[in-house]
């Protein structure tokens, strides 16, 4: 296992310590239970946004805490949903009296733990709503699965909904907006290499030198199909088409196109993917009006990419463009 870490069991703690020293202007860290809150939390009268999930997806979620985005993030162990006590304490720490929105990625563990936390928080008199993100078209959504995973759309939702909360919208408005985003965004990912969970010490899956996994999630889980590596343009097509067909995105739609790196893929490759993705979108009459390119929702050191498309309208565009000041995303301030 080749990692710049000390002991596997200290990875999350030491990362939090690093974030604490690096960004005192943006966030405060609470240990045991672990959570990250905005430096100025709680913000009186503002709906607070709490998200969380396993660690190993950095900058998500901790890197998205700050003005214009999340109020708190709860990091679990690597790839392991955090626990209800973390979420409860984070919820209490950021509640500014206008209620708290939980942004939950659709994994059995995350959903169960956040539900328990929401029940506990409601028991303490806090107004809590939860929104589940499930944008991954690689997973067939049916009665016979845990449903679709929450992946790249989470980042876009946290930014846009964060701006709406900052604007002073109500908990109901903010939650409805989040659900609207979930209904308008789709993602699909692929991997060239597996990642290695520090505790496991070896790659989660073995992938021969000439093969790739299509339809992976963000936890190093194998995808739905394995095949020979293809040129970037073909791979982009294999990710874009299921996204376009699923919603479906239609001619005339305006979208935000997000080309994400899985952690081990350099930026130079993401621009090559972006170029082709825009070409494919345009061929279908879809207009790319906003973009995000980079490693924002990662899977440790996995090499690979995911693409997310979100249908935009003037409200979403305005909220996307609104100032944000976090360690992971920043503009306008």
């Amino acid at each position, binding site marked *: 296992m080749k990692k710049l870490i000390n002991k*596997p*069991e200290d990875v999350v703690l030491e990362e939090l310590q690093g974030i604490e020293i690096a960004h005192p202007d943006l966030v405060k860290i609470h240990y045991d*239970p672990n959570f990250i809150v905005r430096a100025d939390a709680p913000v009186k009268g503002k709906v607070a946004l709490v998200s969380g999930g*396993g660690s190993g997806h950095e900058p998500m979620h901790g890197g998205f805490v700050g003005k214009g985005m999340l109020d708190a993030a709860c990091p*679990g*162990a*690597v*790839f*392991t*949903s*955090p*626990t*209800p*006590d*973390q979420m409860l304490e984070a919820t209490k720490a950021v509640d500014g009296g206008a209620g708290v929105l939980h942004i939950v990625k659709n*994994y*059995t*563990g995350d959903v*169960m*733990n956040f539900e*328990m936390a929401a029940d506990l928080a409601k028991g303490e008199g806090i107004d809590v709503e939860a929104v589940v993100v499930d944008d991954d078209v*690689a*997973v*067939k959504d049916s009665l*016979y*699965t*845990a449903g679709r*995973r929450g992946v790249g759309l989470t980042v876009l939702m946290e930014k846009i909904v964060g701006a709406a909360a900052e604007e002073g919208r109500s908990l109901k408005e903010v939650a409805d907006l989040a659900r609207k985003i979930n209904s308008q965004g789709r993602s699909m990912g692929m991997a060239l290499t597996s990642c290695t*969970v520090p*505790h*496991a010490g070896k790659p*989660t*899956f073995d992938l021969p030198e000439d093969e790739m996994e299509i339809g992976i*999630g963000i*936890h*190093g*889980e*194998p995808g*739905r199909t394995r095949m020979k590596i293809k040129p970037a343009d073909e791979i982009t097509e294999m990710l874009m088409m299921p996204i376009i067909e699923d919603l479906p995105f239609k001619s005339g739609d305006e979208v935000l196109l997000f080309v994400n790196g899985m952690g081990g893929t350099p930026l130079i490759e993401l621009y090559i993917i972006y170029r082709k993705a825009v070409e494919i979108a345009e061929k279908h009459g879809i207009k790319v009006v906003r973009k995000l390119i980079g490693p924002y929702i990662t899977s440790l050191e996995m090499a690979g990419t995911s693409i997310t498309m979100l249908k935009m309208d003037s409200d979403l565009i305005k909220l996307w463009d609104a100032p944000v000041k976090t360690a992971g995303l920043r503009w306008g301030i």
Partner: protein
Amino acid sequence: MTINNDDVIKWLQTYDQVITENKDYLTDLDSIIGDADHGANMHRGFQAVVTKLPGVQDKDIGSIFKTVGMTLLSTVGGAGGPLYSTLFIQAGNRLNGKMELTLSDWAEALEAANNGIIRLGKAAVGDKTMVDALTPAVQTLLDASKDGTSFEEALHLSADAAKKGMESTIPLVARKGRASYLGERSAGHQDPGATSSYLLLKTAADVWTKE
């Protein structure tokens, strides 16, 4: 034979050791159809549990179980955390105030535990989860407690039933949890949660029937 709170403590401590020994095995199983953390998750949880046990060793068995459940809830995370937490909290509710367990107490406690897991996770037998190991074990215990089988014998029978249930997950296509994302590719591999559940019952049989 009855089981007292010392026996319960011993079972939990031994299970912690069993998990430590099987950490890599459970993680390997989870690597194939999940996210490679089930061993580390269970290990983190039961390491925390054993540090809590001295504080509750003189309490009633229900309290011990609920302390275990609360500890797991705040240390395990993932799907396994709430599910194993529910197992212990539901069983603990059924065992409130008890300083000793009979076979039927044990059978009914595990039945409540399994029902709690099914309520929370909405998995049925055949979905390739821990429910596949627990359900036949519970049924065996309930049957045994009715037909007068000895507690010792029942413990072994329930471990055997859990083992068969665990092995029955191998050919299944997962319909719950992370493995369901794999679709058909999940078939051919044993479920990690069913494995840790089997080990829990196996440890009870081993620890409680040592003469």
